[in-house]
C-alpha cells in the first residue's frame, strides 16, 4: 500500500522532471545549437570553398592539431562605421515601429476587452485573420496600395485632395506602414490578454475615491497593463529589428536595416563569417538589454514584498 504510494510519487516526480526538461531541450535544439554554429562561423575566415569558411578545428596526422579562431570579423564590424550606423538605424526604425504599434494597438486591445464576450471572440478573430494569408503576399499587396498609381493615390486624386501622386512607396514611410501592419496583432494579443483580466471594480474604486475616468485609467489601468505593454513591445521590437522582407520590398535604397545587410553579406558577398558576426552582434544587442531589464524587474518585485 505505502509502497505503491511511493511508486506513484516517484512516477509523478519523474514525469514532472521530464516535462520541465522539455522546454530546455527545445531551447537547446532550436536556439542554442544554431547559435553555436553561427558563433563558430563568425570566428572563421572566408575562403572560396564549400562551405565558404575555414574550419574551427585543425586536424593533423596525430589527430587534433589546433584551434583556429579569429576576431577579425568583429573588428571589421567595429572599424567600418557603416555597420554601426545600420545597427542604430535598425534599432531606431524598430523602436518607432513598435511605438506606432503600441499607440494603435492599445486602444484597440482596450476596446476589445470591454466588449461583451461574444463580440470579443469575433473581434479577436478579425485581428488574427490576416495570418491566414502568406506574410509575403500581404507585404507585397502594400506595393499595390502605396504605389504612385496605386489604390490610395488613385483614390485621393479622384477625390481631388491632391493633384499629383504622393510618394509613399520605397521609403521609410512604407517600411513603417509595413511594420505596423504586419506586427500589430503581436501587440494587440498580449495587451488584450492583460486588459481582459482587469477587475472593473478597481476603476469603480478609483472613481469612488475621487478619480475622473481618465485619471482612473492613468492611475490603475495603465500601470496594471505594463506587463502586457512590455510583452507586446518585445514581440514587435525583436523581430522588427532584424526584419528583412519589409525593408526589402517596401523600403528605398536609403532604408538602412540590418536584415538587408545580413542578406547581402550571405548571398551577394558570400562572406559567411562577417554575416555570422553581424547576426551575433545583433543578438547581443537584443539579449543584453532584455536580460538587464528582467533583472531590474525582479529586483523591483523583491523590493515590493
Amino acid at each position, binding site marked *: 500500500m505505502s509502497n505503491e504510494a511511493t511508486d506513484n510519487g516517484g512516477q509523478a516526480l519523474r514525469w514532472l522532471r521530464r516535462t520541465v526538461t522539455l522546454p530546455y531541450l527545445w531551447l537547446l535544439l532550436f536556439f542554442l545549437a544554431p547559435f553555436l554554429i553561427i558563433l563558430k562561423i563568425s570566428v572563421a575566415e572566408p575562403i572560396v570553398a564549400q562551405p565558404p569558411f575555414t574550419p574551427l578545428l585543425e586536424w593533423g596526422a596525430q589527430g587534433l592539431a589546433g584551434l583556429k579562431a579569429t576576431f577579425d570579423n568583429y573588428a571589421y564590424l567595429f572599424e567600418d562605421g557603416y555597420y554601426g550606423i545600420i545597427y542604430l538605424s535598425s534599432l531606431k526604425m524598430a523602436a518607432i515601429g513598435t511605438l506606432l504599434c503600441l499607440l494603435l494597438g492599445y486602444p484597440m486591445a482596450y476596446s476589445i476587452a470591454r466588449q461583451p464576450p461574444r463580440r470579443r471572440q469575433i473581434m479577436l478573430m478579425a485581428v488574427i485573420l490576416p495570418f491566414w494569408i502568406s506574410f509575403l503576399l500581404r507585404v507585397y499587396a502594400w506595393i499595390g496600395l502605396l504605389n504612385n498609381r496605386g489604390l490610395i493615390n488613385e483614390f485621393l486624386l479622384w477625390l481631388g485632395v491632391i493633384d499629383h501622386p504622393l510618394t509613399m512607396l520605397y521609403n521609410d514611410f512604407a517600411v513603417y506602414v509595413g511594420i505596423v501592419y504586419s506586427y500589430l496583432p503581436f501587440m494587440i494579443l498580449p495587451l488584450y490578454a492583460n486588459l481582459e483580466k482587469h*477587475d472593473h*471594480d*478597481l476603476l*469603480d*474604486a*478609483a*472613481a*469612488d*475615491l*475621487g*478619480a*475622473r475616468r481618465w*485619471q482612473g485609467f492613468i*492611475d*490603475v489601468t495603465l*500601470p*496594471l497593463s505594463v506587463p502586457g505593454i512590455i510583452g507586446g513591445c518585445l514581440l514587435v521590437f525583436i523581430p522588427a529589428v532584424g526584419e528583412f522582407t519589409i525593408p526589402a520590398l517596401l523600403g528605398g535604397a536609403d532604408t538602412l536595416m540590418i536584415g538587408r545587410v545580413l542578406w547581402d553579406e550571405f548571398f551577394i558577398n558570400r562572406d559567411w563569417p562577417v554575416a555570422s558576426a553581424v547576426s551575433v552582434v545583433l543578438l547581443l544587442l537584443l539579449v543584453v538589454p532584455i536580460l538587464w531589464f528582467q533583472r531590474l524587474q525582479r529586483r523591483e518585485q523583491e523590493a*515590493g*514584498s
Partner: protein
Amino acid sequence: MNDSPPSPLVQIREITKKFGGVTAVDRVSLDILRGELFAILGSSGCGKTTLLRLLAGFEEPTSGRILIDGADMTDVPPYERPVNLMFQSYALFPHMTVAQNVAYGLKKEHVPADRIRERVAEMLAMVKLEALAGRKPEKLSGGEQQRVALARALVKRPKLLLLDEPLAALDKKLRQHTQFELANLQYQLGTTFVVVTHDQSEAMTLASRIAVMAEGRIAQVGTPGQVYEFPANRYVASFVGNINLFDGRVTAAGNGQLSVKCETLGSDELSVMSAGAIAPGSAICVAVRPEKITISRQAPEAKDRNVVKGTVWDLAYFGDQSLYRVRLKSGAELQVSAQNLRRSEKMTVEWDDEVFLSWEIASTVLLQS
C-alpha cells in the same frame, strides 16, 4: 441640541432602475438617518446591490431622486459625491502599497503631502495596520485586506459610507470579531454606514435599522426587533429567521382578537391579536417563531395560549438548545426550539413522544396575505 427630529442624511425618493426590460429597483423610497448604521437585507438578485451602486453614483436611476445632506445627488458623478464605498471584493489597487491605497483618495483631493501622511498614519492606526503600511495587498490576509479597504473608504471622511457585503469574504470566526469591530468603529466615528448584506444575522447584530428588500422593492423597514417580532408580511417573516406559518380563515372577531381556523390544524382554532377589525371569512396567515413555542408532554394551561398536539418527528440536540420538528395529525410540521435550562442527561422530550405545543396569543403573528 434642539428637539426637532433629526433630518435624514439620505433621502431616496421613488427611485427606479431598469436594466433593459428588467426592473432591478422598483420605486424605492427610503430615509437614512444621520449617524445611523443602516442595513439593506435581501437575497441575491433582490436589487440591494443596485440600490447601493445608485447611492455611490455608479448607476444612473431610470427615475427618482437621491438627496444626500439635502443636496440632490442624482446627477452627480461618483467622484464628486461625499460618499465612499467599501467593495465586496475590496478592490484594493494591487500595484500600490497599503499606505498608497489609503492615500489615493486624498491625493485625488489634492491634499498637501504632509497632511496626507498624517491622515494615512491615523487611519492605519485606527485599523491596526501600521506595521503593514509598505506591503502590497497580495501579501495580506483576507482580514487585513478588509481593514485596508475600510481605511481607504474612510480616509476622506465621507458623510456616508457604503459597505457591500463587508464580511462575506471572511471566515466565520473572523466574521464575528469583525462584526463587533465594525459596529464599534461606526459608533466612535459617528459616520453614517449603509451595509448591504444577504446574511440576516449580520444585519441584525450590526444595524440599528434594517430595510428588507425583495424583488426590487422595500418589504419592510424597522429596527431588528420590529423586523423579527413584527414582520410586515409573509416574505419578511420567512426571510428573517425561522417561522411556522398557518394559512387560515377568520371565524370570529372581537375584543381585539381574531379566531382563526387553519386547515392544517383540524378542529383546533388559533387566536391572534389584531388592532384593526378583519371581517370573518377573510383569508389570513398566522405565524409563530420556533422559540416562542413551549413543548411539553403534559397538557398546558390553555388560558391566553394557543395549543396544538403532535408527535416529535425529529430532534436535534445542540447542548445549549434543542430543535424539535413536530408533526401534526394533518401531516404539517412545526419547528420548535427550546433552551435546555436544566442540567440533565436525559431529555424530557424524546423521539415519537406525543407532545403539546403551546404559545402565548400575544406571541402569535398576524400576516395579511
